[in-house]
């Protein structure tokens, strides 16, 4: 057992750090540091910088442009990205759709879709949830009827994150309703420009437009856009959910956030001193920090075991629950840190404008962040469903 970095690891770390320092555009960094919402263009710009360096699709097989890095290197890379406060990588293409394509797709599909994902030419979104099927994903009703060499798709997808920016959507659709609900589900790629696709915003309680309804009205989809066999959708979905959960915890980002909060506690005035003089608050901060250490090393143990030949399975459910609990706890601690200054509400437009904010500069995002983060224990399979998964798969219940 050895948890220190080797010489090569340290060299790699400094290489990553220099690269980010030299290539992270200052105008994006400024927005990120000020809590000004970044645009689609900002995200694409940054992701393309990583693509060009070959550091974007790091988890892919090397043949398709993956990095071939060790678990330790990936750990270092993610930490450096978070430490530099770069925009989160949008996972729908690179971490969700692509693994399905290179695992289940035909050679043609791989050639057609993977390069554009790797190079950030195409923005993907995920068509899983439906109004009637939340955690009970298999109860989905969107129907794809085969007519000749096309599927005619009808249905409604919901909670589709960033669909307003997307070029393509990967969908779970029902191609057969005769068996049990897990059967007859298929995995279909749909060009968002196809007639009959309509996106309608859902505004969430933090006032932001991040998720959408996607209406599919007699959308004609070429049969060649089907990944895997007809009816293989449920196995693909399970494969993908496990992938999704492994990364969902956002540990590196949390490490940066907790350090920032400690910094804030030393700067935020409280009576004649600073917030750090409030022992009850600092106790909570320290508790979260210890919980975060637990989560980080649990993730590392899991990644190590996956890289030793495992496949992300129910362990990813543990990471998902642990990571999302922490995201929520920490976002709540920020709210507490601010006291009354967590309450003023600024819209995205206000934030983009030059108008001076109410309270400390970092305050404007704090409450929206807390409210928005209620979702993390709901999406990607609610934490209740994750507990059911662990009960069944790990405890054998």
């Amino acid at each position, binding site marked *: 057992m050895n948890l220190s970095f080797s010489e090569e690891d340290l060299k790699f770390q400094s290489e990553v750090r220099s690269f980010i320092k030299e290539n992270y555009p200052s105008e994006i960094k400024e927005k990120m540091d000020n809590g000004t919402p970044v645009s689609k263009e900002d995200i694409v710009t940054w992701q393309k910088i990583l693509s060009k360096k070959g550091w974007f699709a790091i988890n892919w097989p090397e043949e398709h442009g993956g990095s071939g890095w060790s678990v330790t290197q990936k750990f270092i890379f993610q930490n450096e990205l978070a430490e530099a406060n770069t925009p989160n990588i949008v996972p729908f293409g690179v971490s969700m759709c692509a693994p399905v394509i290179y695992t289940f797709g035909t050679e043609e599909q791989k050639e057609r879709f993977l390069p554009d994902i790797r190079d950030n030419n195409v923005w993907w979104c995920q068509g899983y949830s439906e109004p009637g099927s939340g*955690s009970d994903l298999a109860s989905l009703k969107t129907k794809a009827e085969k007519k000749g060499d096309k599927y005619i798709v009808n249905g409604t997808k919901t909670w589709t994150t960033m669909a307003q920016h997307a070029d393509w959507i990967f969908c779970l659709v029902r191609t057969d309703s005769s068996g049990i609900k897990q059967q007859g589900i298929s995995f279909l790629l749909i060009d968002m420009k196809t007639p009959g696709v309509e996106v309608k915003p859902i505004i969430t309680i933090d006032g932001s437009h991040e998720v959408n309804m996607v209406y599919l009205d007699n959308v004609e989809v070429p049969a060649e856009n089907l990944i895997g066999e007809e009816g293989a959708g449920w196995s693909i979905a399970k494969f993908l959910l496990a992938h999704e959960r492994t990364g969902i915890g956002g540990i590196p980002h949390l490490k940066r956030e907790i350090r920032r909060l400690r910094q804030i506690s030393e700067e935020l005035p409280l009576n004649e001193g600073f917030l750090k003089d409030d022992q009850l608050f600092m106790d909570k901060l320290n508790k979260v920090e210890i919980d975060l250490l637990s989560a980080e090393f649990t993730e590392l143990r899991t990644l190590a075991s996956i890289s030793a030949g495992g496949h992300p399975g129910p362990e990813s459910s543990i990471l998902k629950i642990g990571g999302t609990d922490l995201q929520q706890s920490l976002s709540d601690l920020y709210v507490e840190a601010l006291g009354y200054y967590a309450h003023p509400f600024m819209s995205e437009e206000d934030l983009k404008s030059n108008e001076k904010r109410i309270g400390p500069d970092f305050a404007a995002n704090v409450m929206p962040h807390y409210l928005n983060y209620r979702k993390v224990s709901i999406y990607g399979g609610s934490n209740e469903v994750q507990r059911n998964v662990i009960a069944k798969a790990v405890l054998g219940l």
Partner: protein
Amino acid sequence: MDFLISDEQKQLQDLIHQFIQKDYPFDVREKLVKSEDGFSKDFWKTFSQFGLLAMPFSEEDGGYNGGPVDVMIILEAFGTGLIVEPYIPNIVLSGNLVSKLGTKEQKDSILPNLLDGDMQLAFAFSEPQSRFDLNDVTTSAEEDGDGFKLNGFKSVVMNGPAADKLIISARTSGSQLDKNGISLFIVDRDTKGVSLRDYSNIDGSKASELTLENVVLTKEALLGDLGKAFSTIEEVVNLATLAISAEAIGIMQKMNELTLEYTKTREQFGQALSQFQALQHRMVDTFMVHEQTKSLLLMAAAKMNDKSDDAVKSISALKYQVGNAAKLIGEEAIQLHGGMGVTEEMSIGHYFKRLTTIRTIFGNADYHLKKYSSL
């Protein structure tokens, strides 16, 4: 000992519940929140006609002699309807200060208008560094000829945008944290040197930041004795803490009801969510927490009514528990609503936002735990 409210109090409660049901459905509330004023001046007049605005004042001030229990009843009912009209800043805080400390002239110029619903007030007691400590005041009021000159900065002035007059706490002597040396001043919003930056809060309420630059006041602006305002400020804020706790408890009750209802209709895996035992036990817990917190509310209201020695300590016990209960019940309600809980569309998220800001207002759980320990 008895926990029963009087027939009059029951009627008051019913009146508000009927008003909410008939005139204040969620979509009406949403329109009000998005309006310029952020609340309805018509409804405010209605509340005046209901007698709500006059409730806590003495008969000689034109009121109904209502006590803490009456305030509790009004605000708990308000909570169930998520009423956004600024009762606490106007009536519980500012009106009470005028009633307790005002000269006849001050009362005459303010209270009748306030009680009729024709005047809006705000109380500026908070500063960025003061957090929840009412004695932490750096805004200064220097004696200046026959009057005063004010300089400083006040944050989080609830109802600031609507206020015709502001009551401002300022230091006339002593150092930053001294309880002695704090005075109150009544200031028109358009006085020279007064500037307000108005803003909206996440919970639909409105507030202002207040900058005071060489604001010159006559001696008639002083409310109460020079340098002796602290104990009265504390007294009205204690009542406001009871009031906002009652509002929170109304909200919690409503959130529990909405959640129970939702889980009974929403199906997943072939059965209603409410049939899953793990969720049932969690709803039992939120139900119990609401009941237990309500018990503390009744205790604190009764002790304030009786002017009991441990009334202030009870308020801190209450607000501590409200802070915890609000977090648990609020977060569980959203979680059990799933994705629907985080949309603007459903009322549950709006109850959650108000409940979340109440966790902080007049002191969060940590603050009141410390205060409880020190008393």
